[in-house]
């Protein structure tokens, strides 16, 4: 018979390296994480990687096959194919395919809170000059449908959008009317404190399939300290709003996120237990942003990324414990990072993309008719720096995309091409955030060794990889469960 033995199918001897990046594991210097250009990876002994790089791998050894099937090396080019690598790359960058899906409408800057860390530059309740006008709203709806995305998430934001609910209603109706011919998939989200939420507002939201996204910083004392109102009742009013929202819109329709102050960092367990107590299955632990009022009060409320990472480790332990005890509770940013590590898929989160999500994944229509590529760009503008303004609602989206602000973003918006990021093993899972770097470092390209953004990302990736690799099989299953779940319910994060 004409059968050939196994070695006959090896092809031409030798192999070539494909683009790869590596990182020595901080918890084990003898081993390295090796990642491919599309984010497949393995952990290898450091001397094995050295052997691989110096051409000493033998086609018969398992590591050869492992590296080949993860597209870290390529053997005989006449017999192998790079089609899977290209497919992985396309899949990872799928968020680019349709342009911006997240559209933020800032209906008013007015707010009844006086939060010291406010990322927005809020205005007092009576200052109606900071409301979006009807004609701005009409223009914005026109532009919304100029974008090609088949799925549009419309997020109403403020200030406190409930203070301008007429405009929310008008926008919703205009958008739905227009959508009768456009036939896009629509999602409406309202980011609100939920204070003074009326039954009429709720029934409107129910009729139009709204989701609620609110802020809850933790237990009552912490929330009220972080979010002062003269009446000291912010917590109670928000929790009341959550409960009413759940009754009318369903449990899944209400999500909450924290903003972490220096005080919050002392009490990770209490914050998580609060979410557990209130029946949430999802929590978002968000470090402070360097914008708005947060920047002015930074010295008082701020902390280092190192402090945050210490907090995070304790919080993660608590979360795992809660899950081990049979209650599903995930942290949204963790879920997203894990899904990037453990799945081949793209994600809906706009703040961790390369090319950046600013302007390419999200657009913000401000109350005054100005348009920004992200919330952060709007906040910078509110502080007097218009570097990243795209234009006005009555201009075309082409004008916005070719604006100097957008050029500035794109020039620093591809992580794989940024200094230091270009060589980082985590870059296939990471993103470029030119506006954040500009805000913190005064330069949109930024300097990674002193970048808080980078430090946070590296710290989180290291922590999660170590936990996943070295944790008990039960913890590993929990972390995997978050990652895999993320891929079935894409999109929820983008509004967070």
């Amino acid at each position, binding site marked *: 018979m004409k059968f050939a033995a196994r070695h006959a199918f*090896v092809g031409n001897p030798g192999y070539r390296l494909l683009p790869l990046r590596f990182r020595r594991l901080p918890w084990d210097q003898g081993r390295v994480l090796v990642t491919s250009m599309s984010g497949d990876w393995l952990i290898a002994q450091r001397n094995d990687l050295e052997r691989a790089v110096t051409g000493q791998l033998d086609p018969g050894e398992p590591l050869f096959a492992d590296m080949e*099937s993860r597209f870290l090396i390529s053997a005989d080019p006449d*017999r192998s194919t790079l089609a899977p690598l290209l*497919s992985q790359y396309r899949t990872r960058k799928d968020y680019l395919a349709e342009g911006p899906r997240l559209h933020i409408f800032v209906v008013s800057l007015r707010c009844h809170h006086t939060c010291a860390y406010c990322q927005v530059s809020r205005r007092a309740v009576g200052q109606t000059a900071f409301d979006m006008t009807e004609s701005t709203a009409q223009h914005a709806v026109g532009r919304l449908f100029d974008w090609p995305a088949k799925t549009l998430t419309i997020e109403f934001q403020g200030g406190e959008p409930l203070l301008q609910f007429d405009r929310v209603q008008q926008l919703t109706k205009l958008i739905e009317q227009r959508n009768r011919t456009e036939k896009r998939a629509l999602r409406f989200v309202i980011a609100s404190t939920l204070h003074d939420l009326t039954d009429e507002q709720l029934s409107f939201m129910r009729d139009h399939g709204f989701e609620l996204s609110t802020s809850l910083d933790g237990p009552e004392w912490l929330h009220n300290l972080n979010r002062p109102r003269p009446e000291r009742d912010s917590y109670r009013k928000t929790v009341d709003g959550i409960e009413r929202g759940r009754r009318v819109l369903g449990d899944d329709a209400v999500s909450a996120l924290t903003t972490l102050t220096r005080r919050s960092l002392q009490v990770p367990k209490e914050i998580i237990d609060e979410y557990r107590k209130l029946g949430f299955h999802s929590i978002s632990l968000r470090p402070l942003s360097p914008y708005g009022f947060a920047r002015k009060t930074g010295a008082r409320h701020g902390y280092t990324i190192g402090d945050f990472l210490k907090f995070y480790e304790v919080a993660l332990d608590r979360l795992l414990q809660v899950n081990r005890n049979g209650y599903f509770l995930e942290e949204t940013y963790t879920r997203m990072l894990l899904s990037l590590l453990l799945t081949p898929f793209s994600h809906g989160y706009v703040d961790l993309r390369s090319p950046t999500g600013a302007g390419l994944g999200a657009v913000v229509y401000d109350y005054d008719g100005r348009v920004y590529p992200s919330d952060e760009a709007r906040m910078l503008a509110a502080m007097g720096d218009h570097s990243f303004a795209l234009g006005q609602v009555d201009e075309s989206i082409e004008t916005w995309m070719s604006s100097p602000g957008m050029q500035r973003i794109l020039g620093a918006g591809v992580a794989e091409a940024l200094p230091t990021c270009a060589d980082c093993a985590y870059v296939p899972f990471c993103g470029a955030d030119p506006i954040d770097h500009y805000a913190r470092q005064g330069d949109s390209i930024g300097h990674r060794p002193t970048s808080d953004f980078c430090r946070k990302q590296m710290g989180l990736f290291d922590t999660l990889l170590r936990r996943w690799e070295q944790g008990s099989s039960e913890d590993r299953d929990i972390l995997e469960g978050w990652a895999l779940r993320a891929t079935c319910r894409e999109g929820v994060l983008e509004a967070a």
Partner: protein
Amino acid sequence: MQPLEAKVHCEQWPASPLLKVAGLAEFAAGTFPPERMLLDLRDARVRAAGSAICRLPWAGFLTDVPEHAPPSRPWIAVPQGAFKVGVGDVVELRPHASKMALRYRRGSNNNILFTTERCNSYCLMCSQPPREVNDGWRVSQLCDLIELIDKDAPSLTVTGGEPTLLGKDLRRIMARCAEVLPQTRLHVLSNGRAFEDGALAQMFEGLHPSLTWGIPLYGDHYSLHDYIVQSAGAFSQTVRGLYALEAAKQRIELRVVLVEPVVERLTELARFIYRNLPFVEHVALMGTEPIGFARAHYDDLWMDPADMAPVLAKAVNFLSKRSIRVSLYNLPLCVLPESLWAYSRKSISDWKQQYLPACEQCVVKGRCGGFFAWTTDKWTSQSVEPVRGTSCAKH
């Protein structure tokens, strides 16, 4: 085991026709023209229905008693015990050889459209070794056969050889199915290599409402896959073919035969599928069929299924956790851990399936797919033994 071909007595047949066996229901329904049917006179009710029915232009008659057939009309008599042919079946008669073959069996779980004996691979464990013959005549015969298949047939398997070697003619066959049998699921078993450049795959876009492709993948890297299919470059062609099929919006099942070198990297293969081909609908992990080339490669291929259990469990759990459906074919339940029974399917075609003497005592025999009729001792797991009780039985 059922033979699919037998010697028959037949007279007055001018050509080699495909014939559908008709009873009273087929007569009454009028779905198929009598000219293409064989009236089953073995049924007393048909004979009692009177001679008027026999005067219709039937192609001929099926009978145990040739005198029952109207004079000077064609008839076939099937010798006792040689062959089981029933109403609704489609047979091919070769009068010169006095042979009849079953081409479609009503109610069978595995009716096939056999497209060609030719193949561009030469797999180590091929159960149906290919032959380099010119059998292009099969295309028009299949199109004829399709017309005689029951409209409510749940599924058909299109196989070979390698069906895609037919090129555009394969599309013709599928289009005929779409037209005549729109309710019938079609499952094409192909190595996918011919789809590599994309043009062929595109021909199938939107062609048939429930068409799936069963494509084998034997490794996470080319040298393993190419070795199993004994064809350099096959891995690359199949993988690119899979992307072409996906681009043409085709539904894909991956088929993995559990021979020893494949099992050795099965968890890596599962990972490769998830990372690179997450669009596949179903992964079938299949025990080896001990016939054809497989028998010649026992030493290279055989692995006792009981020894695969840990790896199987890992691969099955990995994929199913990631929402990729997995099934286990051709593996008896007694060699699998009970946690995998839910994934096991009774996959062996009825006509070539059997149980072993040990199975008589087994409490899960009814759920078990059993064995291939041609299984021998050395191709049977050492762990085969009757299951006496299950954890479910306690509830």
